[in-house]
């Protein structure tokens, strides 16, 4: 069942064309990634979805035009955006509080999830006392407890060091496998996209358009065997060929 559907979505900033007709779908329980170079307009697309800015084209959710953006999406920004003045549990409960849940009730709903997110014992800690990976897990916890129809993840691990990022990607894959959230991930990390996604949309450089749609039919979890890793590597290579391959000049390699 198709949940999110974009048809020919465009966005200009003045004379600068950022999105040049993006069409895509996300099905129920599907993990979809948008993969593209930095500055391609990936974050602009997310801002359109969250309603921060307005664009042209058709955006539908469950068949209905997307007007009340806040109701459908739980948004996880690039950096963790944890509030330093709130304890971890209150950061995690923030979305519920904004929805009108009382602080105590919101805490009670969030607290049982701390163990699953590897944050048990850190409920009363300040964000500054957490490591980068823990902060990202707290941010993801804050995102999923909102129980929205769909997760929007904006390069969630971009600010982490390479090892932590890999650990977090594997962890997220396991979490996703047991929860099957409908999710849209924005990333410029090919390996991350292949590890996590059911399908990947490849974007061109600005003005962004979809250059290819790649299905990733690998079984999960994808980090188990060497054979799987080889298959994943083959998909990664073909994606890189599509993005950087012969005859394509829109990706200058610096």
């Amino acid at each position, binding site marked *: 069942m198709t949940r999110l559907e974009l048809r020919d979505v465009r966005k200009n900033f003045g004379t600068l064309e950022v999105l040049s007709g993006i069409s895509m779908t996300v099905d129920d329980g599907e993990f979809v990634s948008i993969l593209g170079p930095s500055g391609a307009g990936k974050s602009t697309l997310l*801002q359109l979805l*969250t*309603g*921060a800015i307005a664009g042209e084209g058709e955006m539908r959710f469950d068949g209905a035009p997307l007007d009340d*953006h*806040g*109701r459908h*999406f*739980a*948004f*996880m*920004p*690039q*950096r963790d*955006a944890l*509030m*330093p*003045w709130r304890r971890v549990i209150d950061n995690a409960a*923030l*979305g519920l*509080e*904004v*929805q009108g849940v009382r602080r105590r009730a919101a805490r009670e709903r969030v607290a049982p999830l701390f163990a699953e*997110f*590897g*944050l048990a014992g850190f409920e009363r*800690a*300040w*964000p*500054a*006392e*957490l*490591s*980068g*990976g*823990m902060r990202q*897990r707290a941010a993801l916890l804050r995102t999923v407890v*909102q129980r929205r129809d769909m997760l*929007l993840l904006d390069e969630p691990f971009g600010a982490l060091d390479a*090892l*932590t990022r890999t*650990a*977090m990607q*594997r*962890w997220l894959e396991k979490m996703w496998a047991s929860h099957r959230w409908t999710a849209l991930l924005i990333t410029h990390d090919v390996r991350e996209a292949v590890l996590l996604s059911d399908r990947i949309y490849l974007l061109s450089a600005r003005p962004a358009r979809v250059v290819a749609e790649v299905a990733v039919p690998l079984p999960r979890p994808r980090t188990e065997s060497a054979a799987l890793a080889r298959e994943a590597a083959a998909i990664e290579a073909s994606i890189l060929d599509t993005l950087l391959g012969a005859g394509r000049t829109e990706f200058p390699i610096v």
Partner: protein
Amino acid sequence: MLPAPSRVLAQAWENRAALADNTLPTIRATLAGFACSVVAAFVLSALVDFLPRLRRALFPILIASQTLPLVAIAPLVVLWFGFGLLPKILLVALVTFFPMMVALVEGYVSTSKEIAQMLAAMGAGRWRIFWLARLPSALPYFFAGLRISITYAVVGAIFAEYAGAAKGLGIYMLSAKNNFRPDLVLAAVAVSSALTLALFGLAVLVQRLAMPWERAGRDAKPEPTEEERP
């Protein structure tokens, strides 16, 4: 002409009753004026945060108010409002309001864009975002402004009393000077310095209590490595 510190101390002790009697009104004027100033700065800064156009209209006036020489304005304010508490409150507020206002407005602007964007995506309106993000983001700036302007506040109160008061450190200094008692002038100066230091310390203490996460961040050791399995 310059009395020895020992004489200043001895005379301060001898005149302790009179000094205390004159310090209390100064404390009262300082705190009342400063409290009014902080409340006004908070209300106006919040207003300005919601109405950026108001900010452009208001700031030139506020900056102009900072150019008024206290020496000239203090006697006038006393002339207009008498020897009571009101002119002192006004003068203390005049010198402390602007730094507080600037600190708060800058503080709101310092709010992380990602936090604001995330709150908007959660469905928070302008007012919720102000309350949940912009106001807490301004706290470090607020306390920086508080520490700066609390030191102006005592000076402002003493200036106001100097221009005319029934009691207070300012008028005490004036009459000691007129009686050719530089030792007592210096004793009063010492009291006002101690008062400023105490208020500064109080501001630091309040900041610690109001922002416990700040210390947590400073004391926290970076966690070792990330475990693969949480």
